């Protein structure tokens, strides 16, 4: 199990010292991050560019020296600012896949993969025969077996990606680090490789940290996701939780699309929470933790949870009416934008439904699909 405790990384190393003030004057690329990665888990750091996810990953790899914090794996201390411990990247024994793949252009496919075995400390280094066997195995797993003698530069993008993976796998590392490994592939290949990677990770029971800015990639592949923003973690959770129960406005906005309404809690009866918004009252089912009466909340409703119909249904909660403003056909789904007064609500439904703009429509939202996000 990997544990990261209050990890901070600042790039203007001298700012704090020069000013003679406290650490607070510095700007942090990573501003205090805590999380744990369990064995066999694919843990994703998800966030927009510049959120500190890659810096966090590189700090775990040992390629960056964090400003403060602690990183341990099992019982091993990899980094501890307080004790002045910083194990070299080459001693950590991780496998890493870089965004650019970082395939060594002067070596063959085989040599690229055998390199991590060849540079092992003499005592642990496997014999030549064993190296050949292990490289062969891992090349077979990544379906590169027939390319072993090729120069590494003569591979296609997808093959280079798998070669980078093979090189990271060959030492059976305790932890795999993947830095946006799929972002250089075209859309079709990326889709295939997602499942491929996930299958490998499951079959080999790998523990992995995966960095990406692509939310659908994160949702498909991860055991758990940490959503990062401006050097901090906004929420850690399983993909379904992150999607259905965003903890902050940032998470709700970053993951998927949502309709947002500002509101105040009017009443709480057990799990049933009534929220007053500018455009009317909404009923929500809050299972975990009900807010207090009078608290302001952000209501988030996913477009696919908006139930659109031409006729009013009557006895359903949260039923509003409005007028279709535009519709957008996207092949597998169709979106309708419904105007309610000044408010615009996006609905996403099966493409069979198609209502021309200008039509009066009714829509309802099931109370358990109304998510209340605390406003800070």
């Amino acid at each position: 199990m990997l544990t990261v405790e209050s990890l901070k990384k600042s790039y203007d190393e001298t700012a704090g010292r020069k000013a003679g003030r406290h650490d607070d004057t510095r700007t942090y690329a990573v501003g205090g991050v805590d999380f744990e990665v369990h064995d066999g888990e694919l843990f994703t750091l998800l966030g927009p560019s510049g959120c500190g996810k890659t810096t966090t990953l590189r700090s775990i790899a040992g390629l960056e020296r964090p400003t403060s914090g602690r990183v341990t794996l099992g019982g091993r201390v990899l980094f501890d600012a307080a004790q002045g411990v910083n194990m070299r990247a080459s001693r950590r024994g991780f496998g890493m896949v870089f965004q650019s793949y970082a395939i060594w252009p002067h070596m063959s496919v085989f040599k690229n993969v055998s390199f991590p075995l060849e540079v092992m400390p003499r005592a642990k280094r496997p014999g030549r025969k064993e190296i050949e066997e292990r490289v062969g195995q891992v090349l077979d797993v990544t379906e590169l077996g027939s390319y072993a003698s090729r120069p590494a530069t003569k591979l296609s993008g997808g093959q280079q990606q798998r070669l980078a993976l093979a090189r990271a796998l060959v030492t059976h590392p305790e932890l795999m680090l993947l830095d946006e490994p799929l972002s250089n592939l075209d859309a079709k290949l990326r889709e295939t490789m997602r499942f491929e990677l996930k299958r490998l990770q499951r079959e080999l029971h790998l523990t992995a940290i995966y960095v990406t800015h692509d939310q659908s990639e994160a949702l498909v592949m991860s055991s758990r996701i940490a959503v990062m923003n401006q050097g901090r973690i906004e929420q850690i959770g399983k993909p379904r939780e992150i999607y259905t129960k965003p903890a902050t406005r940032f998470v709700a906005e970053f993951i998927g699309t949502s309709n947002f309404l500002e509101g105040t809690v009017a009443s709480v009866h057990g799990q049933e929470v009534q929220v007053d918004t500018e455009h009317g009252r909404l009923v929500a089912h809050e299972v975990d933790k009900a807010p207090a009466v009078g608290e302001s909340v952000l209501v988030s409703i996913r477009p696919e949870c908006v139930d659109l119909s031409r006729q009013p249904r009557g006895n359903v909660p949260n039923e509003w009416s409005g007028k279709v403003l535009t519709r957008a056909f996207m092949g597998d789904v169709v979106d309708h934008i419904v105007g309610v007064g000044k408010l615009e609500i996006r609905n996403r439904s099966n493409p069979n439904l198609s209502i021309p703009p200008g039509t009066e429509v009714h829509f309802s939202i099931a109370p358990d699909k109304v998510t209340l996000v605390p406003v800070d």
Partner: protein
Amino acid sequence: MRIVRSLLSFQGLLVGGAVVIVGYLAIVPLGYLIHDTFLSSDGTGVSFGAFSRAYGGNAQAGDMLLNSMWFALGSAALALVLGTTLAYVQVRTDTPFKGLFFAASLVPLIVPGILYATSWIFLGDPSTGILNSLVFEPLFGATPINIYSVWGMIWVQGLHLAPVAFLLMVAAFRAMDPSLEESAAMSGANRLTVLRRVTVPLLRPAMISAALLMFVQSLESFEVPGLLGLQNGIYVFTSRIYFVLRAYPVDYGAAGAYAIGLLLIAAAGVLLSSWLQRSSRNFQTVTGKAFRPRPVELGRARPFVGVAVILYFLITVVLPVAVLVYASLLKYYAAPSRKALSSMTLDNYRAVLDMPLAFTAPKNSLLLGVGAATAVMVLTAVVSWVVLRTKAPGRRLLDLLAFTPIVIPGLVLGLALSFVYLRMPLPIYGTLLILLISYCTRYLPYGMRYSSAAMAQMSPELEESAHVSGASWFQTFRRVLLPLMSSGILAGWVYILVVSFRELSSTILLYSPGKEVLSVLIWEQFENGQFTTLAALGVLMVLLLVLLVSIAYRLGARFGLQGDSAN
């Protein structure tokens, strides 16, 4: 404690050693130079006596300053205009004879400045020069060309430097993303507007640094002013220093004062160019990627451009080399005539081989060339790694130090080094070692250029992935860095080997009898007026350099791992 331990590691020793060596090479000579120049004659206090002797009333310092600037600026301008035009035509148009451009660009490598200047003496001497006596006299009845003038010096120096400007600008043109220009064209700009508003501003950083290099190299050139200027008493800084040191009694202080003046002008050039580039630092046009833009079609102008290219090649390459070969076969130099042709003989070559130094000089040159090239490339590989890949404190200073020698003219360095080792009790003065030190210092910046270019075009992720794979620093350096840099390092090695052969300006102050090198041998022929022997020696030297360069290219093709696909 941590610092001590990290300094004692292999990596720490390597880095520390590199810093000490670079600092020693770059700083110590200048320190001695300044110290000895400002030392008063009684050896106790600071004095400006040397400066008043050097620049005072009857030293004609004003003329010298004017000549120096005129010569350096003129040569730089000629080289830059020629080089940039040629580079544009070569890279961006569908001109014929594209290969000839690169053949012409080899000239400064294989024909050293001293030989190039000699060739132009044969061609442009006012009375015996072939161009005057065979072309202008019979056709126009006048002999307008006088190579022994500042214009003559600019012509020879500019032509000799133009290929360097050409190669620098070719790299700049190739590294520029053509989509930047295409998008300007899509925005409705015509070809001229694109050139003026997009191409030239983007190339400005490359042009400024090329101009600076041309300026400094012309300023410090000794061969051309020495061969062409001294005849008519046209002095520039370098020839003045040489003159002062050859006079009796030797006035080291005055020579030092000229050297410091020269250094200040070169430093001013560097400051000016970095001031001019202050705003262009933000746009990086060099992405390390070679682009293949669609060439501009010359259309009806194509044959004319083709003729111009051939003319350029004839004038700058064929003519000087041919005249050198021709002169080497004559007993006394004379313009071609039936009589001259019938008296052709191989006597000069026999004379060369009979010289007592016929084998020592090339051997010394080769020893020095190989030694300097190896030392510089090993040193700069480490230094560029420290500068580009570590966050070691003072790495910028190290970078600066390694580039400093580029503004130290060869003659100044020679003078400064003789100050250093005449005083130091080490047995270095009068040996080949002092020449090796001089060459290492002079070519440190060029080695840096090759090494850091090779290092910079390599993604740091290639090293990081080796680290993550468990490789130690040394394993990474040996198995990933060096092989990937090898083509760049080899190119630098060859370049330094070849330029070491033609080095004259520092050698001429530092060599001692018995330790002559090829270029000094040639200079001695010039001083003794043995032009035809000089020509024979020159032809042999060119052949040797052709051999070296072609071996190097062969090696380059074998070791060149990624090979420049753009070539």
